[in-house]
């Protein structure tokens, strides 16, 4: 097991090194890059599936040397004899990163970044030095640096399969990206791009499996840096601006993280995640570090005062948006919040975290209505769904955590699929406006169909996200009914923007041309794979729950476990419904042409000319009809909603931290 986990962390890094060394242009480089990427993806996918399979078989398998069964998972001790070397290595990497960030901050004259970085580096440096030398070198030694539990395995599977798929997709996509007319002035830095993708993947695995908070922090900061570099990939002024914004917001979270580690170590002597959970009942000591970690999570997950960075991050090429900014990196934020949920549940901190999540869900969903750029719609919807997961983490009851983990799974696969579809559509139609996607199901049946599946997975009744939303609603009603207001209003807003997008895809005016060669090989593999994953996740969710989520939640320190989560009767009905919905595409496939109907033009007040799309206007001129969605911008102002929402969330978060700090000082 240790080997598998280490493989997952190290293999992408090695791959990244190889890609980094790959310079020059031309077919040969392309070919080697392709081989490297495919090999790296294969290793990661196989390793993460093996890890899941091994764990699925039960706990009684051969126990790896140096491993310890923790409360809810297996702790792994990596290379116990080289502890010091690793420790110094980590410090060196951290210093290097800090130096780079400082350089970035100074070069761009963003003094806020400099201040944050100095504060964070100073704190950590002081902490590590005093702890290692002043207080005796043994204190920071942690028995198990890594650990594996069901939640970590779920995250690893998402990272491995979804992330691997995106890397494959990126091969074809980036080629088109630089070949296309839209990005002629963007330097082709594909080696850098893939290097960063793989570094990020390795760091993400590290983040998932870290038990030692120092390690977790290191990987956390690596993902922040990768995100910064990838957002700025195109080097346009807008990209640079947005990348810097993402950087400082995440650094703020990083600072909170650093403070949390120091406080935790000072108060309990522990720097382990599992150790924290063991002490979960001792809320007075743990609450402040947990609140700070939640704050870090909130900033990483782009919750309301910080949502801006995620929206700005959409300037990056689509694989980046799909990988970092919807399916994995932002999930690290909610991952941390969910990890903290046994500690914060039932406290004021929990309530405030939940409110921040709920408000973000509502405002994100409403703001998505006003967006016409498909990627912006997806970004807002990502922010909203992360909000829902944060809400679950804040509520923190058994059912809520269960629903939160389920949301992570469904959101990762379905949203990633949607991002990839939008990426392809953008290259083919040269627009990513939702209104431009009219008749996509006829123009690009494959991509259009996948997009519809992804959307169905995002909000439609018997599928993925809706199951989770339902569970969230039940959990929230049981825990604190007042929060349900945010959920019900938010989820009805989700409905609006998804259905109007779906409607655009099926709406077919006139006889559109079919677009040939919809997909590259890598894109096809990734997107078909994700479609299958989305489908399987929807169909097999009771199984996923049984094998992964329930054992994980059962291991958490909860006293009252609900008798049943959704009820077996409901699951049966849902599967029945799923079957009925499946009949729909099938009936479309096997419909008889003609079928007793007669085709006529649509009604245009009798003014039709030449088929279905033109009519005689009031001036006697021939006009072409056009239909555009409602965005309700006069009713919902994105700017106003964001302003008020951010102000509200900032105030409650600040109040929370201030009150906690005052209490801690006493």
């Amino acid at each position, binding site marked *: 097991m240790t080997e598998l986990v280490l493989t997952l962390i190290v293999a992408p890094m090695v791959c990244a090194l190889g890609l980094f060394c790959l310079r020059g242009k031309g077919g040969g480089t392309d070919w080697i890059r392709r081989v490297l990427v495919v090999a790296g993806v294969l290793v990661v996918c196989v390793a993460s599936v093996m890890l899941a399979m091994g764990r699925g078989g039960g706990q009684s398998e051969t126990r790896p040397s140096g491993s310890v069964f923790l409360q809810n998972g297996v702790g792994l001790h990596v290379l116990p004899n080289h502890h010091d070397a690793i420790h110094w290595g980590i410090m060196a990497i951290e210093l290097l990163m800090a130096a780079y960030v400082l350089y970035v901050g100074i070069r761009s004259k963003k003094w806020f970044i400099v201040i944050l970085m100095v504060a964070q580096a100073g704190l950590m440096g002081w902490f590590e030095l005093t702890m290692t030398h002043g207080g005796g070198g043994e204190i920071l030694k942690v028995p198990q640096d890594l650990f594996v539990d069901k939640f970590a395995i779920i995250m690893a599977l998402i990272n491995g399969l979804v992330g691997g798929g995106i890397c494959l997709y990126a091969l074809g996509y980036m080629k088109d990206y630089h070949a296309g007319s839209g990005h002629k002035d963007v330097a082709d830095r594909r080696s850098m791009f893939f290097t960063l993708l793989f570094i990020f993947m390795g760091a993400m695995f590290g983040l998932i499996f870290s038990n030692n908070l120092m390690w977790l922090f290191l990987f956390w900061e690596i993902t922040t840096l990768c995100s910064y570099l990838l957002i700025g990939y195109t080097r346009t002024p807008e990209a640079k601006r947005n990348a810097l914004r993402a950087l400082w917001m995440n650094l703020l979270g990083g600072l909170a993280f650093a403070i949390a580690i120091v406080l935790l170590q000072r108060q309990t002597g522990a720097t382990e995640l599992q150790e924290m959970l063991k002490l979960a009942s001792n809320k007075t000591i743990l609450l402040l570090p947990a609140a700070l970690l939640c704050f870090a999570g909130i900033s990483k997950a782009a919750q309301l005062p910080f949502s801006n960075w995620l929206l700005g991050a959409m300037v990056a090429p689509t694989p980046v948006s799909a990988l970092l900014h919807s399916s994995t990196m932002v999930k690290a934020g909610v991952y941390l919040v969910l990890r903290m949920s046994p500690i914060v549940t039932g406290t004021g901190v929990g309530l405030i975290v939940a409110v921040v999540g709920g408000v973000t869900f509502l405002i994100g969903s409403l703001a998505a209505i006003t967006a016409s750029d498909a990627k912006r719609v997806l970004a807002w919807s990502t922010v909203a769904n992360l909000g829902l997961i944060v809400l679950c983490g804040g509520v923190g009851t058994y059912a809520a955590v269960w629903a939160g983990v389920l949301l992570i799974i469904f959101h990762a696969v379905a949203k990633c699929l949607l991002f990839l579809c939008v990426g392809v559509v953008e290259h083919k139609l040269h627009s990513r406006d939702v209104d431009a996607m009219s008749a996509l199901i006829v123009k690009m049946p494959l991509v259009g169909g996948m997009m519809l599946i992804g959307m169905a997975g995002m909000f439609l009744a018997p599928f993925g996200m809706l199951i989770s939303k339902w569970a969230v609603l039940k959990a929230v009603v049981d825990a604190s009914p007042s929060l349900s207001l945010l959920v019900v209003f938010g989820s009805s807003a989700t409905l609006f923007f998804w259905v109007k997008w779906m409607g655009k895809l099926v709406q077919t005016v006139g006889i559109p041309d079919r677009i040939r060669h919809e997909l590259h090989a890598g894109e096809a593999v990734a997107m078909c794979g994700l479609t299958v994953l989305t489908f399987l996740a929807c169909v097999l969710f009771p199984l996923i729950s049984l094998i992964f989520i329930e054992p994980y939640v059962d291991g958490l320190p909860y006293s009252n476990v609900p008798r049943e989560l959704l009820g077996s009767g409901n699951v049966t009905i849902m599967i029945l419904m799923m079957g009925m919905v499946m009949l729909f595409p099938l009936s479309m496939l096997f419909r008889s042409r003609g079928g007793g109907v007669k085709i*006529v*033009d649509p*009604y245009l*007040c*009798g*003014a039709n*000319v030449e088929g279905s799309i033109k009519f005689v206007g009031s001036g006697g001129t021939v006009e072409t009809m056009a239909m555009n969605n409602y965005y309700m911008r006069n009713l919902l102002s994105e700017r106003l909603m964001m302003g008020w929402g951010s102000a509200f969330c900032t105030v409650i978060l600040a109040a929370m931290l201030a009150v906690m700090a005052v209490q801690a000082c006493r």
Partner: protein
Amino acid sequence: MLGIKKSPWIIHYDASSCNGCDIEVLACLTPGFDVERLGVINTGDPKHADIFLVTGAVNPQSNTVIRNIYRQMPEPKVVVAVGTCACSGGIFRECYNISGGVDSTIPVDVYIAGCAARPEAIIDGVVQALGVLDQKWKDMQEFAADIDKVVYGKATKSNLPSILALEKIAYYRESELYGGGGDAGLPVETQTLVSLEADFDRMTCVKASINGKIVGSARGYVEAETAHILNISVHPYCQGEGIGQRLIEDLQKALLASTAKRFEIRLGHKSTQGAWLEKQTYRSIKTEVVTPTLSWVFYQKECVPPVH
């Protein structure tokens, strides 16, 4: 059929009326007359409507609208011309821009006279239209049920009024390709009973009928060595059932008895039937411009004399 008579849904269109008749149409909906008690709904949507009420005479602008609306109504459907203008053009008949009553562009089933037509008259007309609607629906059912019992034979002089009506319905869609209505369409649209009778006297006419109702007709004559085949018409309810092909075959046999060496059929240049004719081994030989909007395309095929 009970159901269809109990729920007539109406679409009302003002072709160029002075609004007098329109106000009377709306008056029918008011409590005083309340046509809803007969199940009438004013839908405003051709796809839902059964009865098309038109007021006013037809001008070039309203012509296309009338034809569009008529085309977008599902069968069976009935057209009611409300008021003198809609019946005949009324006092506007001689105007430069008026092509006549509604029947100058689409087949009209019920005429309601009056300037303006009184609500009682309109209601009476609608009730009569229900009878027509019912009859059309029955025809539709009957033709669909007895499509395998078509009887073919020579047409008689007493058939001519039915043939005239049939040709107008059958060529309605085809004629529309050229603009439709008045002089813009195919000649068949402006043909009268008198001209048809003249044709009958010098041509061979064949018909197809179901239960005595004429659903198809065609006629032809021999001039020099060429046998001309004209006006192959099949009722819209029975199109696509092979009736047209059978009529042509019958006519070819009948004309072969005389001195013909080849058959000739002409089509409008926008017609979609060319491919079908080519399948019947006809070849297009020449095009002739008739009006600015219409050219004839001539198709010919050699006769194969019967082997005795």
